[in-house]
């Protein structure tokens, strides 16, 4: 088999995996946007916050330890226990629900009916706020994230030997694919199927879709907007936690985790803000596109690191021809 072609296919496969992770973050955006018309820039920071909280709970850190020490002159850092991963994840989910409630109660309840762009800016403020709180709570240093089940198997790291061996025997070229990426893809698929089932077949899911369709009509048939919004933010928090675990296990929990939110934006633009399948397809296109572009054009001709901007440029060009994205609802404007 042609070496160059095999290499390209490998890059393609890795791009697909990266795309799944982008899609995971983008999913959280779509959920909130559909139900409340808020474009939640803070989604990435929520992933960071969730991952930091998870690590903090696992390691038994005292929240706000640095601040407490600075104010009272004490020297506390840890409770001295470590919590099992599963329990820590459940606790983190509760923290994210509490966060969803707080965000709804203290921020967006007061901003109902404002211009979408004002809401967007409020979420940028929220992103800064959350990032500061997360750093104050758990400290800003790089943390390793290990999620293990009770029998001691952890999220796998490193490359998949089986895949490499098989492809080497069959094609004469071993494909290098991260184990973690494979797990992330499976988790993402389960998550998407779960969310779609939830939206289609449960009472809350139907209410959620009703709110997305028309706030006032939903209100008039007795759907509690407040509850639905908290529900949606909690779901987004849960998606953020999953994304945070995957990205955190891949590259450690640190500030740059929140920047993946920025990568999710072009994904959304490609897929359309209002479509869950769009988020997935957009993520895959961006993931594959930027890896292939970097491999075929960026690194040889443009001096590399084109991954920083390729996604945005692609989205920009794409939008000029189709302003509502691939799967978005057609924008109709009236005076």
């Amino acid at each position, binding site marked *: 088999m042609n070496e160059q072609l095999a290499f390209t296919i490998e890059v393609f496969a890795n791009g697909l995996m990266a795309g799944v992770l982008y899609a995971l973050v983008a999913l959280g955006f779509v959920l909130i946007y559909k139900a409340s018309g808020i*474009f939640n820039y803070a989604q990435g920071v929520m992933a960071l916050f969730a991952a930091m909280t998870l690590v903090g709970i696992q390691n038994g850190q005292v929240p706000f330890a*640095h*601040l407490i020490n*600075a104010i009272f002159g004490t020297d506390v850092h840890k409770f001295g226990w470590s919590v099992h991963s599963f329990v820590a994840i459940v606790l983190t989910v509760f923290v994210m629900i509490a966060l969803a409630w707080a965000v709804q109660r203290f*921020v967006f309840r*007061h*901003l109902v009916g*404002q211009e*979408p*762009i*004002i809401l*967007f*800016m*409020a979420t*940028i*403020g*929220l*992103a*800064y*706020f*959350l*990032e*500061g*709180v997360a*750093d*104050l709570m758990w400290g*800003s240093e790089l943390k390793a994230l290990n999620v293990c089940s009770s029998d001691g198997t952890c999220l796998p790291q490193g490359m998949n030997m089986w895949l490499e061996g098989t492809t080497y025997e069959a094609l004469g070229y071993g494909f290098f694919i991260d184990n973690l990426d494979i797990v992330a893809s499976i988790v993402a698929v389960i998550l998407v199927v779960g969310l779609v089932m939830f939206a289609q077949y449960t009472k809350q899911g139907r209410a959620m879709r009703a709110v997305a369709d028309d706030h006032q009509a939903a209100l008039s048939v007795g759907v509690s907007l407040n509850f639905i919004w908290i529900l949606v933010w909690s779901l987004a928090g849960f998606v953020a936690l999953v994304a945070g675990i995957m990205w955190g296990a891949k590259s450690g929990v640190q500030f740059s985790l929140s920047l993946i939110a*920025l990568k999710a*934006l*072009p994904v*959304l*633009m490609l897929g359309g*803000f209002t479509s869950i399948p769009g988020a997935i397809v957009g993520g895959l296109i961006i993931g594959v596109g930027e890896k292939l572009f970097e491999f075929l054009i960026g690194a040889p001709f*443009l*001096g*590399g*690191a*084109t991954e*920083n*901007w390729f996604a*945005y*440029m692609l*989205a*920009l060009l794409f*939008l*000029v021809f189709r*302003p509502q994205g691939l799967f978005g609802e057609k*924008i109709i*404007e*009236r*005076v």
Partner: protein
Amino acid sequence: MFYREAGDFSSTYAEDQQTFPIKFDRYRYYLVLFIAIVVVPFVINDYWVNSLLLPFLIYAIAAIGLNILVGYCGQVSLGTGGFMAVGAYTCYKFMTGVDIWWGGELLFRLPEFNIFFSVIMGGVMTAVVGVLFGLPSLRIKGFYLAVATLAAQFFLVWMFNRISWFYNYSASGQINAPERDIMGVLLTGPSVQPWAAYLFCLFFTITCAVIARNMTRGASGRKWMAIRDMDIAAEIIGVNPLKAKLTAFAVSSFFIGISGALFFSVYLGAVEVGEVFGIQKSFLVLFMIIIGGLGSIFGSFAGAAFLVLLPVALKVVGVDWLGWPTDIVAHLQLVIVGGLIIIFLIAEPHGIAQLWRVAKEKLRLWPFPH
């Protein structure tokens, strides 16, 4: 008692249409100008200039520029950092003489520009780039546009990082401002007198503010605002959206480019593009105009002053008085800035400028309640 229009009669159209029709406002404006130009240069020292006044003046220009685009024309942009970088690198190239290469040979080299014209060229070039990235705004709206401007941000920063022509092939990849003067007074480089740098920036700030103020209350400003309020309706009553949006992008980028050029040449002196003109800078300037007031020139100044002062004040209180570690204060600053953004958007979406307007309204009636 003293702030009112009663007894202030205009007898010509020019008087009626001046920027500050109320006498008190006008005298206050002259007083501020007088203090800024005549008094301040004699009393300042290095610390004041470098940690407060220069950043304030330069950010004020950037905020005015962004406010024209976001506040007046309603096109949200997250590319401010990238545009500032264009200003900075253009200024650098013109300061050191632009070299044009063709086929591996040096075709010719422009003479080194005076620092003043280098800064202006920074603005002009940024305006061109701004228009280029503004073209999609004719098709894309709202956050779609905001995200599209991110393309400008990341692409421009990448370009200045990778193409060595922009930093004159220096090994460090940085650009360093060489020493330049106007009529013997040093303006860039390490041994600049504080008052000279201050006056140079002040000149640009005042000029930009006056231009912006007059543009926004003239025909072009009204067109921008019509586009902002509802672009389709504006188009129907005869505003050309192509022209209005692109002029907004051009004027806004021009100011942002000037501020980027000054930021590099006068304030920092040496720039590494990813650090200085990253996405954080775009957000910082956006926050300035949200806190200061969207669609207000005064608001741009107020927001710039607020966000320049806040970190300094926090540092003084947190680190110097309370003795806290600097990282806690830095995190607290994030919390406070983020919280303030939310509070302002909830309580006063028009920012500090609106508070000022309300205060003036109260003053006008004082001491009577109605």
